[in-house]
């Protein structure tokens, strides 16, 4: 038998990442006293190296490798670059927080890198098995990260809940995939599309499979009614981990939806459109209404995430590249805002004090006017008020929805975002209209200060000049379809 070695070049960044995860683990074992520092630097270098590799191999062509199990196209490259940037920012933001709480062990870095690798595989998968492997690599790393603080009861409980429900969702997904395999006889995403198009497969089995796949996806996106885990996990995890869970994996989840639903089962859009409409409306309703009642800021942001995921799903409903690129723009904007918001919560934490409740934002404008201003920008952006980027994200998605003829859905969406505006305004109210409860100074490191300022201002600047990011989103989608 003739063995032809696959072309490794399209997967070079993943391979580099895998090697470096091992290096980070070994370095952490062997380096001396300042080994945490070494591991931290190595992790950042790894991300930089991956970014360079991805950037160099950037091409407008679609390259398949590993016998069609793996794909490298402009969408995957752009998503991966975003993931590197996000993970790197997460590490900078959480460095102090994690080391103050004694969680700065070697595992922290290697788990984060493994999770990143999982995301990269998910984004680049063109086969159901690759997709599943990526997803599980990501999920297992996340379960472990949530439980990293072993002495915290809340974190352990969150990790258990996350694990049990996550395993259930993976089961759903696998079951759906097996149905699809039964109907079409293939696990290759590109072949799948052709077979569905040729109508050589049993429609009923396919639709049943699709239902399970959509359920699995909704769980991973934390879209209602599969959202139950999100508030508990967001609240229970250490804030640094919440920041991680809430940011980069959403990019990977976007890639996941694109590969599975659009590339694989795009021909069945008439079937999944209706499901997504229900999921989107439920998510926006539950997310926005439940968020109003929350006192815990992390829990509130979890519900806010649910509502944002509902909005994101709206982008897919139009089932054309206009809608997908709007959804991509939305998810990038969302990640940018989430990063800033959780980083702000961590900046309010001190050694021995966890900023957990929304009342911790009271009087922030008097304690630190600049941070209050940055939070103001972030909150307005989350609420979708121009000229912040969150507005353009909503605008792009609404435009796609109206264009697809669902005007009523756009009206429903804006009514829920009006309800949503209330709880973001409440944070602004606490910061600007109320008196502070404590006058402890806020003293983050200078790198956090710079990055947080850049993050907040980016929300404004990308709102004033949205063309670059919008163009990039459109480019990524058009070159991959």
């Amino acid at each position, binding site marked *: 038998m003739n063995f032809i070695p696959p072309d490794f070049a399209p997967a070079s960044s993943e391979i580099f990442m895998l090697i470096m995860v091992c290096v980070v683990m070994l370095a952490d074992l062997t380096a001396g006293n300042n080994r945490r520092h070494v591991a931290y630097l190595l992790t950042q270098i790894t991300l930089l190296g991956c970014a360079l590799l991805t950037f160099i191999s950037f091409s407008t062509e679609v390259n398949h490798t590993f016998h069609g199990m793996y794909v490298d196209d402009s969408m995957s490259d752009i998503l991966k670059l975003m993931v590197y940037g996000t993970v790197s920012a997460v590490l900078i933001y959480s460095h102090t927080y994690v080391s103050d709480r004694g969680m700065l062990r070697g595992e922290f870095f290697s788990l984060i890198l493994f999770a990143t690798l999982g995301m990269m595989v998910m984004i680049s998968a063109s086969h159901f098995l690759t997709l599943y492997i990526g997803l599980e690599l990501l999920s297992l790393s996340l379960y472990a990260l949530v439980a990293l603080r072993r002495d915290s009861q809340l974190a352990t409980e969150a990790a258990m809940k996350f694990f049990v429900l996550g395993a259930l969702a993976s089961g759903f997904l696998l079951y759906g995939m097996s149905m699809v395999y039964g109907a079409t006889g293939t696990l290759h995403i590109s072949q799948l599309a052709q077979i569905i198009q040729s109508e050589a497969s049993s429609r009923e089995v396919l639709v049943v499979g699709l239902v399970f796949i959509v359920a699995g996806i909704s769980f991973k996106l934390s879209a209602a009614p599969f959202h139950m885990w999100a508030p508990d996990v967001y609240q229970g995890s250490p804030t640094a981990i919440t920041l991680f869970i809430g940011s980069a994996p959403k990019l990977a989840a976007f890639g996941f939806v694109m590969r599975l639903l659009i590339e694989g089962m795009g021909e069945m859009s008439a079937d999944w459109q209706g499901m997504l409409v229900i999921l989107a409306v439920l998510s926006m309703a539950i997310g926005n209404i439940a968020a109003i009642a929350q006192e815990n800021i992390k829990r509130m942001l979890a519900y806010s995430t649910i509502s944002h995921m509902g909005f994101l799903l709206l982008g897919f409903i139009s089932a054309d590249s206009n809608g997908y690129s709007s959804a991509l723009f939305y998810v990038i904007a969302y990640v940018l805002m989430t990063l800033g918001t959780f980083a702000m919560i961590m900046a309010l934490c001190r050694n021995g004090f966890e900023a957990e409740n929304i009342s911790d934002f009271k009087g922030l404008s008097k304690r630190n006017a600049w941070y209050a201003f940055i939070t103001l920008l972030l909150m307005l952006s989350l609420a979708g008020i*121009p000229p912040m980027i969150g507005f353009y994200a909503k605008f792009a998605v609404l435009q796609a929805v109206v264009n697809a003829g669902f005007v009523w859905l756009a009206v429903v969406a804006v009514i829920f975002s*009006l309800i949503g505006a209330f709880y973001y305004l409440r944070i602004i*109210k606490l910061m600007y209209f109320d008196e502070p409860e404590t006058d402890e100074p806020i003293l983050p490191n200078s790198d956090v200060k710079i990055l947080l300022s850049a993050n907040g201002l980016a929300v404004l600047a990308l709102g004033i000049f949205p063309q670059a990011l919008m163009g990039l989103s459109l480019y990524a989608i058009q070159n991959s379809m």
Partner: protein
Amino acid sequence: MSFEFPLLSLIIWLPIVFGIAVFATGNDTNAQLARWISLIGSTLGFLVAIPLYSGFDITTSSMQFVENYVWFERFNVNYHLGVDGISMPLILLNCLITPIVVVAGWEVIKQRVSQYMGAFLVMSGIVNGVFSSLDAILFYVFWEASLIPMFLIIGIWGGPNRVYAAIKFFLYTLLGSLLMLIAFIYLYKTSEGSFSIEDYHKLSIPLTPQIFLFIAFLLAFAVKVPMWPVHTWLPDAHVEAPTGGSVVLAAILLKLGGYGFLRFSLPIVPDASLYLADMMIALSLIAVVYIGLIALMQADMKKLIAYSSVAHMGFVTLGFFLMNAYGIEGAMVQMISHGFISGAMFLCVGVLYDRLHSRQIADYGGVVNKMPVFAAFFMLFAMANAGLPGTSGFVGEFMVIMSAVQINFWYAFLAATTLIFGAAYTLWMYKRVVFGAVANSAVEGLQDISKREFILLAILAFFVLWIGIYPFPLVEVMHSTIDHLLIHLSTSKL
């Protein structure tokens, strides 16, 4: 002046840049610096707006001082600015009110001075942006952005119930504008990929979508104007806002709604406007009569003026939907004149409030004995508010009533009751506050207005009288634009 020069951009961005500079002065140790930068910024903002009037061509109805650049091509959105006879006077009004507000807050605001002054400057630039945008998305961005500074102004420097008022103000206005956004997106689809407002004016749309679009616009603009029954945020916001906030709210922000009707509702969906004109006239008349009666019963001066604002703005919408030249021109004059009068009335209440820290009519009495100069000014503005001939308040109301007579006698009759109610609630309040014997020891200790206050009131008095006696320079600039608008209205777009 050459038309190449980006005058409108300057008018928009100069106050915003100065506003940011004011923010940058930081905490209250630099308060005096913040005040002076804001005064310079707002005065410059007014000065650069003057060429808009002097260089304005009154013979054409097309847009002037046009600037058009691509903003983001993904959705074909342009940075497209221009003014016509409708927007130009409103921009001038806004640029004039800003320095007045800055001076009005000069000594009164002692906490977070830089944030207060900066917010007003930024808002001034944003509002200029609303009036001069010719691209729907650009318009929307400025429109919504104007909420942010006002929200903070009410919430930070307002009265005891400020949080409730600020959030109510924000959510009410947001509700309307979100539906307007959907209307824009729908028009974008119908026009096959354009956000240009001028393109929308030429679009033909069937009646049913026109009615839906009209309702979406109506919600956005009716909340801003505000029309009955969505006016309830206004008394709350006015009462709780600091004096400067009330002035800007009444003089400028309410005009955004009126402007919206002229720029969007009437020309884009004329058939729906015609179809629903009776409803709009009915709502306007309810505002004029019913809200006038409510104003009569108020014990709080600011609340009284707020309700009187709603009644006067009822005249504006009435004029628009009578849909003839007198009606629309009268409504425009009424908008400008209401900007000066209501601004002045709120300043007068502010003058009293700064001294006694009460807005209750019952806490005053006999103010004229202690503050004769102030009483004279207050008299003039109260008369103008009641629509006395010779003041600007008369001109607009008279034109609207004249046009109503041509349509239907009873419309005119009901509208004219405002001259009675307006006189009743304004002058009765004036009598209780100013005349009579000195009511209590607090009034006994009142000092007459300072030079600073005198200048402010004198400037506003000058404009109130000027428009009242010789409104021609104001009417002249609107003439061709409104004629053009009427041609638009008379041609069906089905």
